[in-house]
């Protein structure tokens, strides 16, 4: 569980994070999106009790990040921007070292390390020096370190960067599995497809301020407006003059149909179909226009930069 209130961090004249309010429950994934230098890493560092907030507070796994830094660090698994691997160690030694730091027993360390190395496909290379690993292998090992003590809260900075598609899929599956085991997860990522697939909540941060946050659907609705639908007809049916039900806004005419915006699809879509069938329209499809997180993100960013330019 992560909760923050007006979390702010200022470095001399630079306001890195400004009044961030977050609430992520157990079994939920929050994705923080933003440009480089937007304040994602600083936020994560405050949640790891590495940086003290200038103002506001944060509780992670029930502990205050300022008063109970040690407890926070025990409860959290962090994948940092830089992997932070000791190049002269082997993967087994590395995981064992961090297992000891987190006070795991020898048998627990062995069990956990064997499992993680096997899961991430590193068993064969486990006795090789980390310096000899590829970028993707290093990323996987860093992730294994973050998961070594089976933490209740995971803070993952770019968890799948530098990974091949197969490995990335493996990591996504593991994150989803951890979510189902009631872990609280925060992901900082530039991979919007991955975020769409994993996150329950998304927060977009710009210059330290959270511009918007909510579920993907909420974000789409707020930023892009009500969902748009295309109605396709099987043959040339004259849709001129067709009356649309209340709550359905006509947008444009396409080669073989119409485009409409629907405020409340659950109620309005059956009405549309009923209405069209009553008019003997040969409806071939009623499909939602695909709207991606990327569109949301780019629009939000454009708005933020635009309003900044106006100011």
């Amino acid at each position: 569980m992560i909760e923050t209130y007006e979390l702010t961090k200022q470095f001399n004249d630079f306001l890195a994070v400004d009044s961030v309010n977050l609430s992520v429950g157990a079994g939920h994934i929050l994705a923080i999106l933003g440009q480089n230098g937007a304040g994602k890493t600083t936020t994560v560092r405050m949640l790891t009790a590495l940086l003290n907030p200038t103002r506001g507070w944060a509780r992670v796994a029930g502990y205050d990040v300022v008063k109970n830094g040690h407890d926070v660090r025990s409860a959290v698994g962090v994948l940092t921007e830089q992997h932070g691997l000791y190049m002269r160690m082997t993967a087994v030694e590395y995981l064992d070292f961090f297992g000891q730091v987190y006070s795991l027993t020898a048998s627990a360390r062995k069990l956990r390390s064997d499992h993680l190395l096997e899961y991430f496909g590193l068993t064969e290379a486990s006795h090789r020096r980390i310096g000899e690993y590829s970028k993707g292998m290093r990323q996987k090992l860093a992730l294994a370190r973050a998961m070594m003590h089976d933490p209740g809260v995971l803070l993952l900075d770019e968890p799948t960067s530098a990974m091949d598609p197969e490995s990335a899929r493996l990591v996504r599956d593991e994150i989803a599995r951890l979510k189902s085991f009631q872990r609280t997860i925060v992901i900082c990522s530039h991979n919007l497809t991955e975020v769409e697939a994993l996150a329950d909540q998304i927060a977009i941060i710009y210059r330290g301020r959270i511009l918007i946050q909510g579920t993907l659907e909420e974000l789409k609705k707020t930023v892009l407006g009500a969902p748009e639908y295309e109605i396709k007809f099987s043959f040339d049916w004259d849709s001129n003059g067709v009356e649309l039900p209340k709550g359905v806004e006509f947008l444009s005419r396409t080669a073989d149909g119409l485009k409409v915006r629907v405020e409340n699809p659950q109620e309005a879509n059956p009405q549309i179909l009923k209405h069209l069938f009553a008019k003997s329209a040969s409806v071939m499809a009623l499909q939602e226009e695909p709207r991606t997180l990327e569109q949301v993100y780019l629009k939000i960013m454009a708005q933020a930069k635009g309003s900044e330019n106006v100011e």
Partner: protein
Amino acid sequence: MLSKFRLVWLVAGRELKDQFRDWRVLAPMIILILCFPFLMNEFAKQTVDFLNQYQANLILDRFVPFSIMIIGFFPITISLVVALESFVGEKERGTIEPILSAPLDNWQLYFGKLLVGVATPLVASYLSIALYLFLVLDQDLNMPSFMVMVQLFLLTTAHATLMVSAAIVISVQSTSVKAANLLASFIVIPVAILMQGEAVLLFWGNEQVLWLAIVGVMIISLLLIRVGIAHFQREYLLGREIDVINLRWIWQTFYRNFTGGSKSFRQWYLGVLPLAMRRVAPAVLAVGLIAFLSLWMGYDWIMVNVSDMVHSASPERLQKIESSISQLPDLTNLQGSISAPFLFMNNTRAVAFIFLAGLFSFGVLGILLYMLNIGVVGGVYALIELLGMNPNPLFFAGVLPHGIFEIPALVIGSAIVLYMGAVIVTPQTGKSMGEVMIELFADWVKIFLGVVVPLLAIAAIIEAYITPGLLISVMAR
């Protein structure tokens, strides 16, 4: 508690393993351990042959201890690189964040690094010394006594602790390995000068003073460790990326602390200065007590060491000394030659020197200088008494009038140094080490200009124009 130390060992063990896997650290150390004793031995042979021509046996006796000290020192300087990059190196390699995010306390992390930093050079030094002693046994040279060996062993340990603890402070405060290595000269040069002093003590053969030197170095080392832990902040290790001297920020921080937001001189003098004085008050009390201790020490030292000399002196000799002392202050001339500005400058320089000495030693050297100053007064008092004169009238006339102002100025001037040392070794939440130093400097300037300088000015006027007259009248009686 043991489990807490287990984590210190864990951090140290990893560091050590890492070092032993790095040939760039290992190779120079091994070469140094093996080669330097042979080189030193060859040098010793040549020196012995040369000195034997002149029957300089005393120097020969002291030569082996001196060589041991030098042999112990060299591996420490090389291994300093390991301590210098302990934190900043990890920062540069990007390995610091995972370890800082782990449930390790600051002191566990710090001591883990310190342990390896000290242990590595020490093992290298001990091995090197052992090899040299083995070579010395093979020659016609006197082995040092057991006590000197213990002193050399402790001295080498103290040097390693001092240099490594300073190197780790630098490593925590630096933003790059390059900067840390450049700053290392601030360790190597003072320690090299310190060793020259210790070498003098070794050749002098004064074991007591050498013990004091060992204790002094150990105290400074412990204070450095304390400073390192007090100013170890995860935030600063992660937050600062670039080495830039921000003169504007330095000036603004100083100015803000110096003026304390006051709008006029009156507001500063009556509001800001008393606040600074209140902060220094406990140190003033401590330094005041140290004054009594120093007076007694000076008095006692003269009584113990000089009384035999005075008692065994012939009556003629004694009379000669007495008459020369009574004529010593040619007060009629003194009045003209020693002016108030001269006295003022002299005393101001002494207080500034105490500040400078204290600045680089957490107040220790500053307070030692202060004790020396006060101790001289106790010594002179004892000397006058030993010569059979009553020192009280002389003191009331010659010291008290200007001493009322001068001694408090000296006490306050020295107390700030003690206060500064105490603050530096105390954790200051939310402040960088630089910020703390600037604030302390602002406090020193405030008290120096606002209290010490005016007191010294008044004392100088009294000492130049009133004290001589009073002394003349007392001595005439």
